[in-house]
C-alpha cells in the first residue's frame, strides 16, 4: 500500500511544523511589546531567577519607543548613561515613524503590549489615559520623587486627567519663521526680525517671488500647527474656544486670517496647493525655492542637513498679527505602560528621563528643546550659527496645542480633509472654515 507508516509520520510532522509556525507567529507578535522586556541578558541564568521579583539585581531590558529618528542618538545617549548608573537595567530605544506610531500603539494598548516607556503626544493622551493604559505617576509626584514645577512653561500640567498625573514633560516646541538669506540678499531686502507684522510678510513675499523661475516668497501651506493656526491666533481668532466647547474656525477673525494666507497663493507669492502636494513645501525651502516658511524647531537639524541651503538660512520670530504674536507650543511627555512587566525599573528610567542630566544631553545634542527649567540655553548653543533663541522667547506668549480632549483625535484628521478642498480651490475658504467648525462642534458633542 502506498500509504504506509512512513507517509503517516511525514504527514504528522507536517502538522507539527504547521503548528510550530503558527505559534511562532503568535510569539513574535507579543515580542513587539512588553514581552521584549523579558530579561534578554539573563539567557544563561536559570529560569527561577527571573521569577523572584523581590530580588533587587534582576537583569531587565526595557523598551523605550519614540517616533523621531533624528532624536534617536540623543535618546540612546540618555539610555546609555542610565544603564551606567543602573547596570542591571538595559534600555532598547525603538523608533516607529510618526505615520505608523499611533496605529501600532492603538493595536498594542488593548493587547497589553505597550512598550515599557514611550513618547506621548498631547493629542493622543486623553484616549490612552482614560482607557487606563498608562500608569499614573501621581503617587510618585506626591511622594516628592519628582517635582513637576521643575519644568518650564507649565508643561507639567498638560498630561493631567481627573487630577491624576501621567507623564513627565520631555521637551517643548514652538514655531519660527525660517528664511533664505541668499534670496533676501539678491533682492536687497533686510532679513525678517521681531518688528515684522503679517502685512510686511505678505509685502516682502510678493517682492521676493519670481514665479517664472519657480521661486516664491512664502509657502502658504495648508497646515495647522506649523501653518494657519498661528495666523488665526495672531489675528484674534481661536482654534477651539477657551473652555473647549466650540470650534473657533467660524470666528470672523479666524476666517480673515485663513483668507489672508490663501490670498498669498492667489498673489503668486506662494506655490499653489497642487504644487505643495507634489513637493513638500519644506523640501522646496531646503532646495532654495522658497524665501520664507513657518516651521517647527524640530525641523532644524533636518533643514540644516541640506547641502543646498546650509549656511544660507536662519530663524526669525513669527510676524505680529492684529491682536498679538501667535504661536503654538506643544510639549511631549514620557509615559509608562500600565501593563508593563517591570514597572519598578520603568519608573527608574522614566524618572531619569525627567532629570536635569537627561535634559542636558537632549539640549547638547540639539535633539529638542528640553522641558527642564534652565537647560534650554544649551540647546540654543547647540547650533550657534542659527538664531535658535527665537523658539525660547516665543514660548512665553504661545498658546498650548489645542488637544487634551477625546474629540481632538476625531476632528483633527477630518480638518485636513476639508481644508484641502478649500486650499485646492474646490470650495471657498469661508465655506471650508464653516464646514470644519460644524464638523468639530459635532465631534465635541459626540465625545463629551
Amino acid at each position, binding site marked *: 500500500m*502506498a*500509504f504506509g507508516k512512513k507517509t503517516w509520520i511525514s504527514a504528522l510532522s507536517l502538522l507539527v511544523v504547521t503548528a510550530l509556525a503558527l505559534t511562532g507567529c503568535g510569539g513574535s507578535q507579543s515580542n513587539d511589546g512588553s514581552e521584549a522586556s523579558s530579561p534578554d541578558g539573563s539567557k544563561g541564568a536559570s529560569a527561577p531567577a527571573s521569577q523572584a521579583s523581590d530580588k533587587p539585581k534582576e537583569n531587565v531590558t526595557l523598551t523605550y519607543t519614540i517616533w523621531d529618528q533624528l532624536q534617536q542618538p540623543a535618546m540612546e545617549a540618555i539610555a546609555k548613561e542610565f544603564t551606567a548608573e543602573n547596570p542591571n537595567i538595559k534600555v532598547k530605544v525603538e523608533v516607529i515613524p510618526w505615520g505608523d506610531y499611533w496605529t501600532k500603539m492603538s493595536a498594542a494598548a488593548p493587547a497589553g503590549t505597550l512598550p515599557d516607556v514611550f513618547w506621548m503626544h498631547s493629542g493622543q493622551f486623553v484616549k490612552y489615559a482614560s482607557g487606563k*493604559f498608562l500608569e499614573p505617576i501621581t503617587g510618585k509626584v506626591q511622594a516628592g520623587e519628582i517635582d513637576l514645577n521643575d519644568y518650564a512653561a507649565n508643561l507639567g500640567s498638560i498630561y493631567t486627567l481627573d487630577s491624576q498625573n501621567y507623564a513627565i514633560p520631555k521637551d517643548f516646541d514652538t514655531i519660527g519663521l525660517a528664511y533664505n538669506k541668499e534670496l533676501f540678499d539678491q533682492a536687497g531686502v533686510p532679513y525678517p526680525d521681531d518688528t515684522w507684522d503679517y502685512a510686511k510678510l505678505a509685502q516682502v513675499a510678493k517682492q521676493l517671488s519670481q514665479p517664472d523661475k519657480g521661486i516664491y516668497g512664502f509657502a502658504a501651506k495648508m497646515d495647522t500647527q506649523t501653518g494657519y493656526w498661528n495666523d488665526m491666533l495672531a489675528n484674534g481668532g481661536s482654534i477651539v474656544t477657551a473652555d473647549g466647547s466650540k470650534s473657533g474656525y467660524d470666528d470672523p477673525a479666524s476666517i480673515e486670517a485663513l483668507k489672508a494666507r490663501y490670498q498669498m497663493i492667489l498673489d503668486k507669492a506662494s506655490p499653489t496647493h497642487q504644487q505643495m*502636494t*507634489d513637493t513638500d513645501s519644506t523640501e522646496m525651502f531646503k532646495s532654495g525655492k522658497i524665501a520664507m516658511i513657518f516651521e517647527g524647531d524640530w525641523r532644524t537639524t533636518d533643514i540644516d542637513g541640506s547641502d543646498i541651503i546650509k549656511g544660507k538660512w536662519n530663524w526669525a520670530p513669527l510676524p505680529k498679527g492684529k491682536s498679538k504674536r501667535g504661536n503654538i507650543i506643544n510639549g511631549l511627555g514620557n509615559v509608562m505602560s500600565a501593563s508593563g512587566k517591570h514597572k519598578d525599573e520603568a519608573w527608574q528610567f522614566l524618572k531619569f528621563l525627567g532629570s536635569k542630566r537627561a535634559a542636558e544631553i537632549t539640549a547638547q545634542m540639539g535633539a529638542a528643546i528640553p522641558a527642564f527649567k534652565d537647560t534650554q540655553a544649551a540647546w540654543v548653543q547647540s547650533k550657534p550659527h542659527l538664531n535658535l533663541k527665537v523658539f525660547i522667547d516665543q514660548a512665553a506668549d504661545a498658546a498650548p496645542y489645542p488637544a487634551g480632549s477625546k474629540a481632538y483625535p*476625531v476632528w483633527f*484628521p477630518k480638518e485636513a480633509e476639508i481644508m484641502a478642498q478649500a486650499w*485646492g480651490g*474646490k470650495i471657498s475658504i469661508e465655506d471650508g472654515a464653516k464646514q470644519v467648525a460644524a464638523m468639530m462642534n459635532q465631534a465635541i458633542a459626540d465625545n463629551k
Partner: protein
Amino acid sequence: MNSKSRYVWAYAMIAPTLLGTVLFWSWPAVYSIYLSFLKSENFGLVNHWVGFANYERLFQDPEFWRNLRNTLYYAVLFVPLTLVFSTFFAVLLNAKIRGLSAYRVFFFLPQVTMPAAAAMVWVVLFAQDYGFINYVLGTHVAWISDTRFAMFALVIVGVWGAIGLNMLLILAGLQGIPRVLYEAAEIDGAVRFRKFRYITLPLLTPTLFFTSVVLMIGATQIFDSIYLLIGKTNVALPAVRSLVYAYYQNAFVYYDQNYAAAIVDVLLVINLILTGLQFAFQKKWVIYD
C-alpha cells in the same frame, strides 16, 4: 487502505493551507461582519451591540456612494485596459524574435518592483512643474492633484503594474494552443489577423475569464496607489477615494473600526455579486474544448 484513512490522509495534506486560510482570511472576514454590528469604545475593549446602525449611517452617507462610484469607475477602466494590453504584449512575446527573454523580463519587471518604490517614481513622472510626462506632452497638467485627471493617473499606474503578471498568464494560455490549428489555418490561407480572431482568441477565453475575475476583485480593492500617489491632503482625493481607502481612513485614522467594517462588508457582498455575474455570463463567451 480503507476509505476512512484515505480521508484522514487527505485532510492532513490540506491542513497547512486550510489552517492558514481559516486563521488569516476566513476568521477576520467573519469577525469584521461581527464588528460591523457593534459600537466599540476604548480600543475595542468595550463593545455595544447597535444592530444595523452602522449600515444605516453608511447608506445615508453621500461620501459612501461617491466612493462606491469611484471604485467601480476605476474597475471599469482598469480591467478591460489591462486585459487588452496584456493580451497584446503576450501575443507579441509569443512570436519567435531575437532577445525574447529580455523582453519578457522587461515586461515582468513592474510586477517585482515594490509598489512604494514605483509610486515614488510615478509621483516624479506626474509632477506638474518638472514632471517627465508633462515635458514630453508639452502640457502643464497637475496629473495627481487635478480632479479631472487623478483617476486616469491611477489607472495608468494600475495597468502598468498589472500587465506583467497577466501577460505571463495569457502567454501560458497561448502556448497551450496546439500548433496544428495554426498550420491547418495557414493551409486554408488564413492571414495573421484572422488566425488571431478565429483561433487564438476563442481558445484563450478560459485564461481571459480567469484573469478578468481576478483583476475585477483586485480592482475593487484598490488602495495603495491612492495612499502613495494621491495622499490625504490632496484636493483630488474625494474624486478618486475607493471603498478600501475609506475603510483605511475610518479604521486607522478616525479609529472608527465598526463603521470601517461595515464598508468592507458591503464591498465583500459587491465582490460576491460581481464574481457571480462573471460566472453566470461565462457561458456566453468562454469556450472550453
